[in-house]
């Protein structure tokens, strides 16, 4: 029988499912209380380390997928994937998708009247190294209007999806940019209360910035950690 080490529960920084200012949550969030269950092998295992067999190769440069360079400000996003005990999460896949520099997705349901860019898909994928580090290249996405309320604009953001080591650590989040005035009036970002909301804001970084080429941003992702630390020798007590 395996030794099942559960993951810690969600901390105070997690948003609720129902956040009425984000109108789409009202008819889509459960009203019954969640049933809390113990962690079993189902929750503590996950498709770790086999992402290449699942999805195929890495696509870490979103600016080289087509014939020419996409329009907009080229950026490098770099960071670490850690657990909440500060340990790196190696060999985990981060999936990336975003609007183009004008704030438009190539998705056919996106009817916002901003130009499409034939040289930008806006989707990629990167794998963390042994220290949990990742880096990808893209263009800074534009802000765009959405129909949630009067004069509603989404801040510039990049969607990020991480599988992590287990079903329990799975997360989809968004990375925002520093000094964006739209963050504080955005119902989606604001579903997460301050100060935890700031965990989704990247930092401009001159060390990551490359001369005459691209601006750099740092962004760390913190996944849930194990509830207890495995001892070197389980019989040593």
């Amino acid at each position: 029988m395996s030794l099942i080490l559960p993951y810690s529960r969600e901390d105070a920084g997690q948003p609720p499912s129902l956040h009425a200012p984000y109108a789409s949550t009202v008819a889509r969030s459960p009203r019954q209380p969640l049933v809390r269950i113990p962690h079993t092998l189902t929750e503590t295992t996950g498709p770790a380390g086999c992402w290449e067999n699942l999805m195929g190769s890495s696509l870490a440069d979103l600016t080289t997928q087509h014939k020419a360079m996409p329009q907009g400000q080229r950026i490098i996003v770099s960071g670490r994937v850690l657990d909440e005990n500060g340990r790196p999460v190696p060999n985990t896949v981060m999936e990336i998708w975003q609007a183009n520099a004008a704030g438009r997705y190539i998705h056919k349901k996106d009817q916002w009247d901003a130009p499409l860019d034939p040289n930008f898909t806006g989707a990629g994928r990167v794998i963390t190294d042994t220290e949990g580090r990742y880096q990808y290249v893209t263009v800074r996405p534009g802000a765009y209007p959405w129909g949630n309320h009067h004069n509603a604009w989404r801040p510039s953001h990049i969607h990020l999806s991480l599988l992590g080591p287990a079903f329990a650590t799975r997360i989809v989040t968004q990375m925002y940019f520093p000094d964006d005035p739209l963050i504080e009036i955005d119902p989606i970002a604001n579903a997460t209360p301050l100060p935890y909301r700031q965990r989704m804001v990247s930092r401009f970084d001159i060390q990551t910035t490359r001369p005459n080429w691209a601006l750099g941003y740092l962004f760390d992702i913190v996944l849930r950690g194990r509830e207890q630390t495995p001892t070197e020798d389980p019989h040593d007590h």
Partner: protein
Amino acid sequence: MTTEPANPAPRLDNQDPGLFGQTPSQTVGPFFHYGLPWKGGADLVGQSDMGARPELFPEEHYVLNLSPPKGAVAGQVITLEGVVYDADGKPVPDAMIEIWQANAAGRYASPDDDRTQIPLDEGFIGFGRASTSEDGLYRFRTVRPGPVPGPGDSRQAPHIAVGVFGRGLIKRLVTRIYFEGAPENAADPILALVPAERRETLMAREVDGAWRFDIVLQGAAETVFFDV
């Protein structure tokens, strides 16, 4: 006298050690179809387009579709399908469903499942992802999983872990699919934690050769969701 500022400006980004902690969840939004589903993603035993929505973006942008060939998989191949409904009973066309399950022998393809006495299947990872269709329907092809250990000495009935994402879902919702009529259900330790009158919402039923499992986000027939 000190020259340090009395109130240094806070570092308002996620590099601030004082803010370190779990990254908050956010919605996948309505436009994830070209970024997340991949070819073969909903077909855990093959490479079909099942679960992807390539009609929602130009073909030259279908770049994440290179799932490698899968080997032969042991066990009974099944189709798993259902509709995602909102509080008004309307199908949700922009949801994404993920599944995670053991193989037919009951072992997870994970380094954290070290029960080497139970065989791994070379071609079966047990993770899948499907977008809902215009009609709110998701569909997977997979194998019926074997039973896996539960807390203590208990044994869990065959089940599939499910994550639900979509526009309007700030956080992933988590549920489980069990198989109606499985003899192990009666002793399943997780089902036992669910009020008896709501357990039905966790049962897939065999309809026209497929296992049917609707997901109701809110309302009288609301699916049981778990805090994991």
